[in-house]
């Protein structure tokens, strides 16, 4: 147990260091981008006086390092600051957006992960026969088509032609959970199609790998059915690579859904981040960057730890 604890602590410290580096990178990156927040807010209608006034009000005349340090100080006190463009409290707005993103990701994961694993098992059971080929063909096709195109196609046929689901997935407070679920039906379907193939292929490959082992042959000779062999003997032993790829895809569901959010006008983190990057609203970009990096690092950490714990050789190193 001590080993596992030490491992988690190590990974956690490393994660924090990574987060800090990410925040430095984002800050420098945003500084390099052309134009500043004052210019971006006023856009084509900027006059020199208005620019100067806005820069002074936003505190942009301070040196960059001082701005970074004061931001960092705030973060350590749990204060993400206020958005330069709209003056809103970042933590509040971000919290709501993150909630929405997690809501969408959660439902996409609830559908896609079991489905992918089940399809993977099915593909192994009927290896090289028509169910395997059909599953592979469909999932590979769906991962190869750009997600915005899948979005538009579903929007047109399911939303406009059949009228089964709304094409605009704007959810807001005051909707019941059923209304929300109906509203996000199409984006969830698109996300499921996008992440399905990766997880399903990995499940199939990992289990096939284990199926070559001697103990599988033993199980077969005991007279177990093929599906039971796969489920009881092969699957537990291939859990590490599967968890790895599942975690990667879960991370994608949180940090990589900008396109789907834009296509379905879903009020999540992606759209929020993009709007603020184009306005050079540094504190918000920093905060979003931290959250995204945190999610990514966290899920990868979970994958690492699970794969170590599930492997006796790694659990008890010599």
């Amino acid at each position, binding site marked *: 147990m001590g080993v596992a604890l030490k491992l988690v602590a190590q990974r956690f410290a490393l994660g924090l260091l990574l987060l800090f580096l990410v925040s430095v990178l984002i800050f420098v990156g945003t500084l390099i981008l*052309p134009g500043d927040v004052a210019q971006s*807010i006023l856009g*084509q209608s900027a006059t020199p006086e208005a620019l100067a*006034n806005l820069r002074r009000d936003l505190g942009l005349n301070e040196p960059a390092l001082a701005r970074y340090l004061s931001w960092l100080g705030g973060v350590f006190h749990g204060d993400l600051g206020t958005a330069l463009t709209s003056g809103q409290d970042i933590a509040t707005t971000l919290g709501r957006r993150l909630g929405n993103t997690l809501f969408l990701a959660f439902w996409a994961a609830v559908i896609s992960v079991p489905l992918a694993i089940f399809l993977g098992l099915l593909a192994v059971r009927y290896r090289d026969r028509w169910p395997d080929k059909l599953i592979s063909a469909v999932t590979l096709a769906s991962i190869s088509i750009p997600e915005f195109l899948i979005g538009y196609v579903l929007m047109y046929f399911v939303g406009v032609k059949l009228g089964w689901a709304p094409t*605009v997935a704007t959810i807001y407070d005051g909707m019941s959970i059923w209304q929300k679920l109906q509203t996000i039906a199409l984006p969830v379907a698109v996300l499921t199609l996008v992440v399905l193939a990766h997880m399903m292929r990995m499940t199939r490959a990992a289990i096939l790998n284990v199926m070559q082992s001697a103990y599988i042959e033993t199980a077969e000779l005991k007279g177990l059915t093929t599906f039971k062999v796969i489920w009881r003997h092969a699957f537990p032993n291939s859990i590490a690579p599967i968890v790895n790829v599942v975690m990667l895809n879960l991370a994608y569901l949180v940090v990589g859904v900008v396109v789907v959010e834009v296509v379905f006008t879903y*009020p999540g983190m992606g759209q929020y981040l993009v709007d603020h990057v184009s*306005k050079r609203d540094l504190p918000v970009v920093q905060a979003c960057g931290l959250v995204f990096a945190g999610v990514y690092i966290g899920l990868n950490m979970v994958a690492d730890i699970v794969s170590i714990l599930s492997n006796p050789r790694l659990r008890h190193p010599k």
Partner: protein
Amino acid sequence: MSRELEFLSKQVAFGRISRRNFLGRAAALGVTAVSANALLSSAVRAAGPMKGGTIKVGIEGGSTTDTMDPALSTNNTSTMLLRLWGEPLVELGPNNSLEGRVAESWSGSADASVWTFKIRPDITFSNGKTVTAEDVKATMERHSGEDTKSGALGIMRSIKSMKAEGNDFIVELADPNADLPYLMTDYHLIIQPNGGKDDPNAAIGTGPYVIKSSEPGVRFVAEKNPNHWDSSQGHVDTVEMIVINDDTARVAALQSGQVDMIDRVPPRTAKLVSRAPGITVYSKSGPGHYVFIMRCDAAPFDNSDLRMALKYGINRQEMVDKILFGYGSLGNDTPINASYPLFTPVEQREYDPDKAAFHFKKSGHEGPVLLRTSDNSFPGAPDASALFQQSLDKAGIALEIKREPNDGYWSEVWNKQPFCTSYWSGRPVQDQMFSTAYLSTADWNDTAFKNEQFDQLLVAARGELDDAKRKQMYTDMSEILRNDGGLICPMFNDFVDGVSDKVGGWDEKTSGFGLMNLYAPVKTWVAG
């Protein structure tokens, strides 16, 4: 027109038969869809507005970074929002006329240098406070002066002093300006209690609606303001605005009935959308135009022959056909078109490769000309640049196209680089358009055009109260700009809106922006 058709159109107006049904019967009577539609809309208007219900607007332009402060409003979404909860002193009416909103009436001194606005008595802000001339003065103060961040600052600079006397708001100008009431229609200049100095984001004004829920860049909900003074506006109980920036998603939302009206239907698909059942596409010409701008003070565009060569080398008709898909009109190298009140047509400049080659040779310039463009400078700008390249090629002029990123285009390329693509949304009157972008000293003189005669004419026209003389002056100015300026204006883009048949009271004649000058949710109603 047959009696039967008239009867049928009234039936639709009262919601007894559907619009689709009506069009079918009209076709059976041998009437074209266009004239049947026209008949229908006049019948619906005549039936009068219906009260109640909800109108949902799918609108482009909103961003999560938007605020409620009128001074910082920059896009369609925030402007429509302002029109829900607030009102300016004066607003544009049909055919470029003016109608009073917070101001009941107004008058200018004989030399147009002092203007008096009479504030409508007994109207209240949505917080119950009565509107006074002091509130108006405070509003104007917040948009002017050294410290302001307002987008309306350019307009306010010409004001020398302001005062509030009883119910009158009096403006004294540094130079006479006959167009001052038009300037007061600027969308930033929403009258707020104490000018919004206490809380610019409070969204408290005199408009027909009150904002109930606001999530910038996502969704806004407004409910009827029961105390609004004007019963000819605010027919529906609830207005919902949903920000949908993706073109395809916006059109799909209209087609699936999730919203009742959308702005900026992409010209490429507008014809297809108009064929969908239950949807009408309205196209309205306006002052907005897509431009190629050359800075007259930067080499090689400081050469008037080179500028002329490029002006002759652009095929305007091709641009209107292929970039706007017919939803627009020909430009003529001046920012002014028929949507301006004192407009007289100037001879149309045609594509002429021979003249272009002649002027190019005369300019003595050698080698290619560099044009910068980006997707967001106007829809289809890179394609338009490629068309320009081909049409210039026939005149033996090489155009090199450099694609710039959208991000930072307005801060790094526009108004800085010598030759680039851009757009103007236009202004209600000539004076404002010329003063904003072509006066030597203007902040946004993006063509760096400096012409003494032009400047003198502009100032003289402001104080000229004789319309015929003013009209002549503006024609002369357009002529100067067209021959000597750095502006290549190939096309004026139409506003293309998509509207569900559920919406009654649509008026195509409203001047200004699309969606009935962004007043659509305020002026239309649910027709059943």
